[in-house]
């Protein structure tokens, strides 16, 4: 017996260890009970080291930027001025500081505005396992964190606390396949269950076919799951299609658009909120002031008749037109077989006059052999317009002096008319009257 055990000692130990772990696994799965003690030991052993490394990294970053990087760039400083390098480093440093301050400020603003009682935390580690989406945050049961608490940012929900250890907590991210939360759509109040898929996108399940969900619609937490208070943004709908039993609604989680956020809020005491009527504005959108009112109203000077050529194509068209008219050719009138205009004199043609059809004599006397210039004045009606270096605006046009093309274009755009580029298919047609 002894020799048998000695001979098969290794395989016996292997089987014992495997069997013990199988028993451990079976107890956990069957009773849905976790071996908390082992986890606490490991997390307590690992996370303090991770926190120390994080602290060293955070503190060392400034040192690295200000000292090591400066030393590394010393060779470059021989070619570049010291001042330039210092400024560059300062800009990088300030940008990082600004980004950190922005994040902190956003969290602070959100924290002060949300009715729920929250606790700020920093992500300090990531969970093991290729398919798992869990992170560790630096707040644990000592700070009042409990299992099942919601984790959010101003952008949206991040996940929920899966385990709360004394000094840290494990957070199951919204993208984890085991994650689920009750959600409701903003527009049509469609209820469903948000599920992670292990990918950056999430799925809203259990939505019947007859419910209407639109692309771009926002989903909010419904509060039904008793974890997330109602009214927190979840994400925006990216695709909707019919699945085998329910609609398959793919949602992009708004809090995870730039990866796992560094700073999060743990909701210690949740308060339900109303779902807003408008989608959440993540960043203020700058809206410029309206353009100043033009001197001439569009009614007084019809935009299509007053604007100069805005594009190179317009200028070229006027140039060709001027050459044709100098040779007494009227475009669109010539019979088949008639001699075409001689465009070899294009470079010697009189300057195109945007004021309209120009008499040959007038064109020759005013422009001579000058190179074509971009027209500065408005396009006048064809008949009766005199070619002059400073063409006068048509009667009743309003302003004494023609406004610059830019101002006119702005005025016309304000009036909703297209004046600059010639629309496709109308390139050869006369300007509208």
């Amino acid at each position, binding site marked *: 017996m002894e020799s048998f055990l000695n001979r098969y000692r290794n395989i016996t130990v292997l089987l014992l260890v495997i069997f013990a772990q199988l028993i451990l*696994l079976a107890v956990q799965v069957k009773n849905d009970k976790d071996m908390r003690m082992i986890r606490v030991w490991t997390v307590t052993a690992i996370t303090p080291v991770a926190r120390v490394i994080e602290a060293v990294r955070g503190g060392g970053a400034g040192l690295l930027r200000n000292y090591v990087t400066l030393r590394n760039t010393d060779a470059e400083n021989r070619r570049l001025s010291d001042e330039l390098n210092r400024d560059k480093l300062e800009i990088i440093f300030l940008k990082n500081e600004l980004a950190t301050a922005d994040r902190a400020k956003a969290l602070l603003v959100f924290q002060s505005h949300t009715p729920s009682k929250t606790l700020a935390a920093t992500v300090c*580690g*990531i969970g093991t396992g290729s398919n*798992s989406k869990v992170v560790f945050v630096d707040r644990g049961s000592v700070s009042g964190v409990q299992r099942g608490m919601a984790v959010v940012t101003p952008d949206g929900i991040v996940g929920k606390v899966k385990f709360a250890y004394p000094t840290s907590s494990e957070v199951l991210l919204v993208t984890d396949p085991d994650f689920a939360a009750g959600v409701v759509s903003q527009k049509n109040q469609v209820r469903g269950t948000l599920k992670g898929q292990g990918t950056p996108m999430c799925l809203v399940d259990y939505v019947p076919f007859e419910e209407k969900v639109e692309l771009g619609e926002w989903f909010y937490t419904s509060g039904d799951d008793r974890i997330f208070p109602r009214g927190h943004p979840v994400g925006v709908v990216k695709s909707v299609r019919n699945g085998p039993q329910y609609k398959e609604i793919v949602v992009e989680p708004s809090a995870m658009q730039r990866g796992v956020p560094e700073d999060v809020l743990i909701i210690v005491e949740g308060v339900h909120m109303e779902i807003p009527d408008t989608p959440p504005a993540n960043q203020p959108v700058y809206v410029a002031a309206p353009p100043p009112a033009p001197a001439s109203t569009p009614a007084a000077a019809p935009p299509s008749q007053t604007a100069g050529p805005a594009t190179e194509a317009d200028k070229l068209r006027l140039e060709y037109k001027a050459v044709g008219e100098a040779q007494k050719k009227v475009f669109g009138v010539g019979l088949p077989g008639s001699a075409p205009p001689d465009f070899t004199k294009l470079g010697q043609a009189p300057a195109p006059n945007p004021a309209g059809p120009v008499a040959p004599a007038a064109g020759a006397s005013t422009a001579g052999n000058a190179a074509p210039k971009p027209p500065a004045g408005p396009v006048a009606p064809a008949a009766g317009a005199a070619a002059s270096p400073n063409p006068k605006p048509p009667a009743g046009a309003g302003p004494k002096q023609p406004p610059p093309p830019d101002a006119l274009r702005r005025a016309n755009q304000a009036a909703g008319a297209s004046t600059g580029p010639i629309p496709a298919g109308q390139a050869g047609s006369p300007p509208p009257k």
Partner: protein
Amino acid sequence: MSYSGGRILLSSQRESQVSRFRPWIMVAAPLAAILFQVYVPLFFPFLAFLEAPLLVVVYFALMRHSQIGGLLAGALVGLAQDSLSKNPLGMFGIVKTLVGYFASSIGLRLDVDNVMMRMLLTFFFYVFHQFFYWVMARALLAKTLGFDPQRTLVMAALNALVGVALYHFLDKLRETA
């Protein structure tokens, strides 16, 4: 040239040389590997492919030539990894126990100082680890995890490359007889 010369197969177990490590290295290396997997992908997500705990288990199992030592190292590292995941304890533990046992068994018969052999073994054990974990997740936890063979092979190759470099570093920490 080393004792094993250009050979890959060893003629007897006596020919194989047991490597010895200081106790603190035996503790610090797995801890560092787990810490690496917990912390580094937070800032460098592209390094998430690296299964550092597995590499460390394979290395110590290969070099120690002790099947019981290998399987215990695998079990401890695996359980620690389980503790930091959302899964029930034992999933990584069982897989790494087997990896430790098989690696130390192979280490008795092959020249594990050979770079190509190390690369091949790491490649093989990575595929074995991922596949066996997938099988266990389906069989024991009824989880429908995806298993992409192509991706796994690529990851195995990358881990093998990194593993060879890591083993070279860990070789420096060996105690000379």
